[in-house]
């Protein structure tokens, strides 16, 4: 296992730049998740690390080795593709054993290592089957076992769970995390599903349009977003945004009063549904537009001027539609962003 570092890495296809100025240090044994909407360059990043795509600019290192222009064979990484990429004409045994066979590991050792890997993902009874005779979840495990059977520098997983049904996805999620923890391997995991990213990652790398928006622990990303994109992408329901203007130390927006901004100018206030507390004397108010009970809580959609905000209430809470609700935000949970640039404005309000 080793660390991975990307320095000013770039990727372009002709004149079309997919990724720019990618800087990222991944520590040995760390679980890093690349998160972002579809088409933002996650797979491309992954494939550059694997060596399947050339790197247009910058440096890629694994441990002490520079691997920027190395052939995938020499990089020693293991990868799990979204569609598993199993060899359909080989049995599970041969699929898992292929990296060893190519590396000329002798048959007895190979068999033992295959069984070790298969045991880790509960595949032992299926070794003689062909991929076509397996369920989606089992195929997924074969792909995992084929990665585990090696001793790679780093594990790369590109949306490994997106072809599974929801229930299996949750189960496999836990298994992957457990495997990574117990083996202490470096893992880079790509997903567009923020829940997956939050639950799995030591650190999340949030990408948008080929640029890293923020790198941080799931808590950092959730509580302390660097910009509007991050704030809006993470969390369900997404963060509420209210646009307004700050002048002479007061933030003015429909439904908001007496709020002190960190600076003047066009600002956007952001807050999360669960940080709102109902309060007769609260500084925030909105008209009830819709009520959405989820069973464990009730989400109330409020109209605050032009924007809609969602706040979270008690599970029995049923305010009448059209009524006026007042609420207050918990200390330190009102975030400000520059409306134009999207940048977060930190500092005491």
């Amino acid at each position: 296992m080793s660390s991975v570092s990307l320095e000013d890495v770039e990727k372009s296809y002709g004149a079309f730049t997919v990724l720019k100025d990618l800087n990222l240090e991944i520590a040995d044994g760390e679980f890093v998740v690349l998160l972002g909407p579809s088409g933002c360059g996650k797979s491309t990043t992954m494939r550059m690390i694997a060596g399947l795509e050339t790197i247009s600019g910058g440096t890629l290192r694994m441990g002490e080795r520079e691997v920027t222009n190395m052939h995938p064979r020499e990089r020693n990484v293991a990868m799990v593709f979204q569609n598993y990429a199993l060899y359909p004409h080989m049995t599970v045994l041969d699929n898992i054993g292929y990296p060893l066979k190519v590396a000329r590991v002798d048959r007895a050792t190979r068999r033992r290592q295959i069984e070790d890997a298969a045991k880790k993902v509960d595949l032992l009874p299926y070794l003689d089957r062909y991929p076509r005779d397996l369920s989606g979840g089992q195929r997924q495990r074969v792909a995992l076992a084929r990665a585990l059977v090696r001793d790679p520098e780093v594990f790369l997983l590109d949306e490994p769970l997106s072809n599974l049904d929801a229930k299996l996805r949750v189960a496999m999620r836990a298994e992957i995390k457990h495997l990574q923890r117990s083996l202490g391997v470096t893992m880079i995991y790509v997903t567009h599903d923020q829940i997956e990213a939050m639950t799995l990652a030591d650190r999340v790398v949030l990408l948008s349009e080929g640029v890293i928006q923020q790198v941080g622990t799931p808590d950092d990303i959730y509580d302390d977003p660097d910009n509007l994109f991050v704030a809006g992408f993470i969390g369900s329901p997404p963060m509420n945004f209210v646009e307004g203007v700050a002048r002479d130390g007061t933030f003015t927006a429909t439904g908001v009063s007496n709020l002190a901004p960190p600076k003047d100018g066009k600002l956007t206030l952001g807050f999360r549904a669960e940080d709102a507390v109902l309060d007769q004397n609260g500084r925030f108010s909105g008209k009830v537009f819709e009520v959405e009970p989820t069973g464990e809580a009730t989400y109330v959609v409020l109209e605050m001027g032009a924007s809609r905000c969602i706040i979270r209430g008690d599970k029995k809470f049923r305010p009448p539609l059209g009524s006026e609700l007042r609420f207050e935000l918990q200390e330190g949970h009102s975030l400000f962003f520059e409306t134009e640039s999207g940048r977060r404005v930190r500092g005491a309000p």
Partner: protein
Amino acid sequence: MLAPTLFILFITGFVPFLYVLVVSFFDWNTFAQNPEPQFAGVNNFRRLVFDEAFLKSVGLTLKFTFFVLVSQLVIGFALAKLMMRNFPLKGLFRTVHTLPLMIAPIAVGATWRLMTVPGLGPIPHFMGKWFDISYVLSRFPDQAFATVVIMDIWHWTPLVTLTLLAGLSNVPEEPLEQARIDGAREWRIFWDITLPFLKPVLLTTIFIRLMDALRTVDEVWMLTGGGPGAATRFIGLYIWKIVFPKTDYGYGSAMSVLTLYMTIVLCWLLYVAMTGMKENKK
């Protein structure tokens, strides 16, 4: 709906075959003293086994088939690989390269004949001018054989290219990339991953070309007429000679039956060899 189809198949396919099979057990030559068919048991086949000219033509046909098949597979695969990439004027190249397929074999033979006529065709002219080789098809058996082989390669390689191209474009990208990450070298990936994906297409192509090559007649007939001597007298030409100028129908039928049998056995052997390959390796 099935009944009429089966009936037509029976009339057009099975009945002629049965007829030939029956005739092969008769002595039947319209110019013989007794032109009526007479039952001869396995006499025709016994005659065949000792007919040196026939055995020679069988050997010649096998040699021809081997050369054209191997060349066509190698060249066809190389061209298919080439056409998987992009290069300028690719569309034009693809069209031009399939043109030989659209020419009737008899016309192919005629064209090549024109190209090889001494004193007229370009091939003898340039062979003499550049390599100082006296190129006369009607005199040198090796030249005749080689020319026939090259003509067949020219004629049928595009078919192999097209089928292999179809096969190659159906090979999914991900297992190939996975194999690269798993540490395999290119030739190894070809052998372990690409080839198994290509196997059905490859088998079909080989069968088609094998059967075609074993029954090559018309273009060779036009080019060399089977000569010089018997240098290019393949089975088909020999059968023709027995059945038409000599009107020895019984004997000709026996040859046809034996050739069919030989073709089936060859295909079967090949099939077993190619499909059994992987299973044995466990």
